[in-house]
């Protein structure tokens, strides 16, 4: 008998039906993967089960009995726990204090030592060791995740839901997580994994449910599906050929970074003597776990942050001390990670956003005034060339979905004269179709003889896209690894700061 059965669950938001009569059974001793594009209704469905949303229709059965789940507390009481992408942990508290929040039945005074022995017992039971006395903010993402999973299990979860748990993990950390999940399964738990990464499903799933536009389009045992079947079910069409076409390029020039050091927000050495170059006609991938200096490095490259020392030369031109605008004029442009804050002004129409960096240049400037005709034409060109779905050029940027907004931003940067692009996690949060589109656009730009620096937390993306990869760890860059020698585990080890000598410099 399933622990949990969802029957005809429907949930609508203004203007969109997120889940439309969805059925789902969760069995004990099983890892069930729910996959689908952004907006397919995966997370909404799990939020309904966890009591974050009230369904508009349908029923939930736990152990065969119909239940009403109005709040997360109700869900927990029924043994349903959820680990979100943004952890439910208070950063300034210790791990143990996080376990203590909201506990009842004790005395007025906090009794943490009593709680500690109980949590330690749970650590042994589930084979998860967490440093209970440390503040959450001092932990790595993988450690936070472990603490969060332990907390959910400690609160009595039989059904453990994880929303995109590997999006910020290295391959090593991800396989450690999967090992734990299998152990939970063997203990009789039901594990639900929300993801859109194909290889994860193939690695851990026992059963797969694919959602598309709020409906279940596929429900199957793991051994009956192939990557092609899953991709087609997810997108409603087959995935375009796995490899992107790449032309071999001749090197004509390069953006050279030498001994670049950059200070972080708190005065720390965020980047220490980074040295690398990106040539015209190649994609240089920068791998690393978030927070190892990537942000500061990117900001120093594009001119948003002052570099401490070292040099950045664009085909012989020194960029140090030059403003963002001057660097842009020299042919260096930027696709920022934070689309809504750095990529566009959300309340302005697409026309204004289209010329946000170039409004002072011909043809957008005409006799010191804005040339609205040219601006509108350019916005229209971005929209049609990059397949941006929107009602018109004058729609507010805020009205676009994440994927369409990103296509718009990438289009804006690529359609203007530029030889070098810095792209920071350009596909983060995008679904498969939009991801594919953006990657293709960047590859095309490379094939046209331009240099791209691709900073990404997604190692698979870097391996697919890059000609060479360097790893940044604690602000230090590794020597480049060429495409023929890409090895996921080796790069993963470098990201964790291990074995930094084992890879010989390759030129």
């Amino acid at each position: 008998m399933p622990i949990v059965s969802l029957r005809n669950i429907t949930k609508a938001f203004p203007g969109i039906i997120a889940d439309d009569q969805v059925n789902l059974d969760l069995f004990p001793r099983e890892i069930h993967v729910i996959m689908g594009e952004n907006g397919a209704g995966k997370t909404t469905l799990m939020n309904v089960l966890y009591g974050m949303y009230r369904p508009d229709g349908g029923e939930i059965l736990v152990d065969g009995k119909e239940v009403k789940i109005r709040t997360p507390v109700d869900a927990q009481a029924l043994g349903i726990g959820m680990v979100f992408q943004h952890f439910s942990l208070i950063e300034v508290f210790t791990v143990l204090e996080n376990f203590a929040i909201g506990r009842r039945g004790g005395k007025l005074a906090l009794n943490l030592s009593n709680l500690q022995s109980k949590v330690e017992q749970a650590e042994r039971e589930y084979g998860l060791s967490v440093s209970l006395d440390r503040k959450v903010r001092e932990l790595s993402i993988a450690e936070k995740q472990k603490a969060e999973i332990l907390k959910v299990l400690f609160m009595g979860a039989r059904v453990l839901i994880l929303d995109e748990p590997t999006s910020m993990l290295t391959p090593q950390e991800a396989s450690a997580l999967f090992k734990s999940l299998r152990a939970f399964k063997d203990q009789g738990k039901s594990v639900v994994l929300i993801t859109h990464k194909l290889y994860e499903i193939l690695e851990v799933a026992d059963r797969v449910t694919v959602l598309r536009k709020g409906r279940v389009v596929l429900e199957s045992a793991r051994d009956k599906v192939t990557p092609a079947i899953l991709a087609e079910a997810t997108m409603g069409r087959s995935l375009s050929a796995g490899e992107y076409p790449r032309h071999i390029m001749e090197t004509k020039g390069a953006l050279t970074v030498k001994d670049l050091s950059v200070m972080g927000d708190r005065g720390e050495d965020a980047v220490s003597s980074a040295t690398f170059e990106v040539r015209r006609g190649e994609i240089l991938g920068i791998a690393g776990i978030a927070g190892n200096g990537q942000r500061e490095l990117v900001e120093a490259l594009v001119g948003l942050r002052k570099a401490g020392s070292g040099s950045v030369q664009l085909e012989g031109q020194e960029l140090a001390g030059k403003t963002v605008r001057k660097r842009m004029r020299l042919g260096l442009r930027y696709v920022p990670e934070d689309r809504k804050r750095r990529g566009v002004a959300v309340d302005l129409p697409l026309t204004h956003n289209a010329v946000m960096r170039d409004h002072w240049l011909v043809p957008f400037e005409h006799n010191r005034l804005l040339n609205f005709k040219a601006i509108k034409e350019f916005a229209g060109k971005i929209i049609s060339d990059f397949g941006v779905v929107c009602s018109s050029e004058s729609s507010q940027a805020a009205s676009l979905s994440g994927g369409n907004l990103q296509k718009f931003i990438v289009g804006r940067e690529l359609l203007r004269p530029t030889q070098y692009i810095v792209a920071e996690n350009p596909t983060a949060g995008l679904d498969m179709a939009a991801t594919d589109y953006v990657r293709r656009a960047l590859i095309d730009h490379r094939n046209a003889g331009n240099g791209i620096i691709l900073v990404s937390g997604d190692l698979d993306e870097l391996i697919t896209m890059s000609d060479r990869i360097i790893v940044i760890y604690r602000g230090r860059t590794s020597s480049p690894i060429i495409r023929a020698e890409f090895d996921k585990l080796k790069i993963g080890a470098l990201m964790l700061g291990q074995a930094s000598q084992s890879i010989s410099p390759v030129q």
Partner: protein
Amino acid sequence: MDQSAGTLNLGVEGMMLIGTIVGFFTDYYTGSLLLAFLFAGLAGVVLSLLHAFAATSLRADQVVSGTAIWFIGWGLSGVIYRALFGNYLVPPTIGTLPHLQLPILTSIPIIGPILFGEDPVAYFILLMIIVTHYFLFHTQIGLNLRTVGEDPRTAEEMGVNPIRYRYAATMFGGFMAGIGGAYLTIAVTGTFYYDLTAGLGFIAVALIYFGKWKPLQTFLGSLVFGAVYVLFLTIQTHFQAIPYQFFAMWPYLAIVIILCGVAAKSGGPAGLAKPYEKRE
């Protein structure tokens, strides 16, 4: 306490002002100090409820709401005074609180009167600082409250009702602000005049930043402010030629300068001044 739960209360000034008048007239009519403080505190609670309703339930901008509360308290205190006492040429007065006179202890030279010669409320305040500190950092409810201030969604997931906690914390703040206001009329001046608090409520908010959301450190900050205040009061008496406003300004300026150094780097509750919107 308020801010620990994630509600920024700029209305403290208004709640203190309403406390000055309510404390004053209650004492004037009943002669009971206890009732005076109680009613002043309750008046603060009424205003704080307004703030809590706007900030928590209506999810209004807390700076705007707090500023409105300030004006309400400011206006209302004046109106009530006029309505009750008219326009006296000689303002009505009440006796101020007697200072403690402990045998032996108070007569110790120098430190005796300083440590043991204050009025009872001063000791009550010291006690409240310790109680608040214990409550925030050593009790289950205190931990829950700080969770609400950091991340209401997490609090709710852990079975803590953020709305209820924010209301309670804001009301507690209102009660204490009301008492603080009454303290000025009852214990310090013995009479009421307009805008008696002279920005002390805002200073209190600023001191929370100084104290990094910890009652004991905040108290330390208030001592610094008090010292600077008294220092310039003393200097002022020696330089009669210079307008007194010039000196009166310094303690406030000192706070600004200190805050520029201290508070710029300090991290407050992550959920401060952000309304909590339940997803539905």
